[in-house]
C-alpha cells in the first residue's frame, strides 16, 4: 500500500458537525417549496372544513342575523327531515347511473379507438371536444335540445315517435341530467383508458392467440386485469366527481320536477343560499363529506381485491 501524503487534518471521529448540514439545508428548501401549497390547503380546505363542523352546530340565519349555538339539533333535524331520504336516493341513483354509464362508455370508446383504424386521432379529438367546451354552454345547449319541442323530440318525431318532456317528467329528468354529464366528461376517461390500453404489450395478445383464446377471453383475462389500476383511479375520480355535479342540475332542472333531481349537493345549495339556513346547510355538507370519504376509502380498499399490481 502506498504511503499517505499530507497528514489528515485533526478531526476525531464523531467531531461536532455543523448544524446546517447538506441534508438539513435541503429539508428546509423542501419545506419552503411546499409551503404555499400547504398554507393554501390549510386555509382554503382544512380550515373551512373545521368551520363547517362548527357551523353545523349552530342555527345561523344570515337574513335575521342570528347565530346561536344549538348543539346537535341540526343533526336531529337531519334525521327527521322528510326530504332527506329522497335526496339521498336521488344522489345514489345519480352517482351509480353516472359512474356505470360513464365508465362503460369510456371503455367502449377506448377499445374502439384502439383498433388502429385510420382517422383514430380525429375521432379521439372529436370525442374529447365536449370536455373543453364550457360546462354551462354545453348544458344550455342540451337544455335547449331537450325541450318539449326541441331538437331531440323533433328528430324523434321524424321517426314517428313522440318524445317525452325530458326535463319535466320525473323519470326522464334524472336520466337527462346523467346523459348530459356523461357526454360532457366521458372523453377524459376515454383518453385515460386509451393510454392504459396502449400500455398493454402486444406480445401478450399474440401469445394468447397462439394459445387459442378468443377476443372476448383476451379482453377479460389480459386487458381488464392489466388496466385495472387505471379503472380504479378513474372510478374514484368519477365517483367523487359525480357527487359534486351542481351546475347542470341548477341550469337544467333546478332540482325538479319535485325533488327527483335534487341531489345532496343541490339540496345543500338550496338550504344555504336560497333558504338562508347556513347552519343546516353545513350539516348537509358534513354528510356529503362523510359519504365521499367513505366511498373513496371503500374503493381504495377494494383495490387489493381487484387491481393487479406488477410488484
Amino acid at each position, binding site marked *: 500500500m502506498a504511503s*499517505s501524503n499530507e497528514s489528515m487534518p485533526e478531526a476525531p471521529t464523531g467531531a461536532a*458537525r455543523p448544524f446546517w448540514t447538506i441534508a438539513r439545508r435541503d429539508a428546509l428548501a423542501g419545506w419552503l417549496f411546499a409551503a404555499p401549497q400547504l398554507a393554501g390547503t390549510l386555509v382554503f380546505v382544512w380550515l373551512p372544513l373545521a368551520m363547517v363542523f362548527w357551523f353545523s352546530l349552530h342555527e345561523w340565519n344570515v337574513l335575521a342575523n342570528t347565530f346561536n349555538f344549538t348543539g346537535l339539533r341540526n343533526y336531529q333535524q337531519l334525521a327527521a327531515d322528510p326530504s332527506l331520504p329522497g335526496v339521498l336516493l336521488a344522489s345514489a341513483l345519480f352517482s351509480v347511473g353516472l359512474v356505470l354509464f360513464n365508465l362503460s362508455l369510456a371503455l367502449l370508446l377506448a377499445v374502439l379507438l384502439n383498433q388502429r383504424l385510420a382517422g383514430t386521432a380525429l375521432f379521439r379529438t372529436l370525442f374529447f371536444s365536449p370536455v373543453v367546451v364550457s360546462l354551462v354552454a354545453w348544458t344550455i345547449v342540451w337544455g335547449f335540445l331537450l325541450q318539449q319541442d326541441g331538437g331531440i323530440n323533433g328528430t324523434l318525431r321524424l321517426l314517428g315517435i313522440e318524445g317525452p318532456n325530458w326535463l319535466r317528467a320525473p323519470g326522464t329528468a334524472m336520466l337527462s341530467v346523467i346523459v348530459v354529464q356523461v357526454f360532457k366528461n366521458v372523453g377524459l376517461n376515454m383518453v385515460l383508458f386509451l393510454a392504459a390500453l396502449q400500455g398493454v404489450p402486444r406480445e401478450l395478445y399474440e401469445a394468447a392467440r397462439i394459445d387459442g383464446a378468443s377476443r372476448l377471453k383476451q379482453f377479460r383475462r389480459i386487458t381488464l386485469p392489466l388496466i385495472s389500476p387505471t379503472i380504479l383511479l378513474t372510478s374514484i375520480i368519477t365517483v367523487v366527481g359525480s357527487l359534486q355535479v351542481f351546475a347542470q342540475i341548477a341550469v337544467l332542472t333546478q332540482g325538479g320536477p319535485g325533488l327527483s333531481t335534487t341531489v345532496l349537493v343541490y339540496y345543500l345549495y338550496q338550504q344555504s343560499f336560497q333558504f338562508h339556513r347556513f347552519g343546516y346547510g353545513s350539516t348537509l355538507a358534513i354528510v356529503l363529506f362523510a359519504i365521499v370519504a367513505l366511498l373513496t376509502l371503500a374503493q381504495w380498499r377494494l383495490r387489493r381485491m381487484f387491481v393487479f399490481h406488477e410488484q
Partner: protein
Amino acid sequence: MAAVQLSQVKKHFGAVQVIHGVELNIQDGEFVALVGPSGCGKSTLLRMIAGLETVTQGRIAIGARDVTDLDPKERDIAMVFQNYALYPHMTVAANMGFSLEHRGRPRPEIAERVRWAADILGLAQLLERYPRQLSGGQRQRVAMGRAIVRDPQVFLFDEPLSNLDAKLRIVMRGEIKALHQRLRTTTVYVTHDQVEAMTMADRIVVLNAGRIEQVGSPLELFDRPANQFVAGFIGSPAMNFIRGRCTPEGFAAGGIVLRAPEAAAHAGREAVCGIRPEHFERCGEGSGAPARVEVVEPLGSQTQLLLRLGDTPVVALFHERMAALPGDAMHLRPKAGAVHLFDASSGLRLDDVQAA
C-alpha cells in the same frame, strides 16, 4: 490535482451497513479503479467522495482539506455518470460550459475552455447539437468534456462505459486512459468490468460487500491475489478452483494429484487450488493428471477446452489451434509457479498464512 484519503469510512442506510470501515489513500495524479460485483459498495463509495451521499462515520479528505461535511460544489471534483446525465434542453457547448457559467466566469474564458476540451475529445463539430442528436459514444465524450472543462482536483467516473457496445467500449477505454496521461488529474474510476480496471488503472481496489479485499497494481492482483475472491474476480477467463488437500507430493483432489511443489509446505491442510486457464500445459502420463475433454471452443488462434479434471470441471485455454474432440483424454499439469493455494475455510492466500 490532489490526493484523496478515506479514513475509516463507514456507511449505513437505515439499519443496514453497506460500507465497513474503508481505509484508502489515493496518490496525487493516480488512476485508481474501484471494482467489485454488483452491490459491493463501489458506487456508494464514489458518491461519498463526491458528496452525493453522506458519510455515517469516518473522514474523507481531498488535498489537505477535510471535505466530509462539504457540499459537492465545494469539493472541487467533477463526475462522469453512467447515464451521462447531460442536460437535454441545452446544447453540447452549453452543457460543457454550464458549471463555469454558474460560477460567473467571463464568457470568453468559458468559450475558450469549452473549445479546449472539445478539441481534446474531438467534439468541436458538435458544439451546437443537442444531446438527443448524438450517439452513445458522443454523449459519453460530452459528459467527459463537461468534467474536464472544470479542471478539478479529482475526476470521478461511475461506470461510464456500461451503456456502450463492446467495440465502442474498447475505443473509449483507450481515450480515457490517454486523457489521464495527458491531464494527470487524480482519477477514481468505478467499474464492474475487471478488464477495464486492468487496462486503465495504476492501482486497483477490489471491493466485496462493503469491504476492501485487496489494493494493488493490476499485475500484483493478477500474480498474487490475496484471497480466493480477488483471484476469481481478476483475470479472464476466470481462475479455476479445485478443492482438495495439500500433500508432500503435490495437491490431491478427487482422485488425482496435481504437480504443486508449493503445497508441500502446507502438507495436510485442506485447501483450494487455483490455476488460471492459460496456465495449464499438456504433458505425459508421468507428471500430469488425467482429464477428459467435454466441450471444445475453437477461438481461431486459441482453443478453449472445458474438461473434467478428476471430478472437477475446469477451463483450459491454449494459445494454439488444437485438434481435440469431446471425449478425448489427455494429461494436464499446471505450469511451474502457476499454482495459487488458498485456505479452504477463510479463502486467504496460504503463503500469507502460517504454514501448517
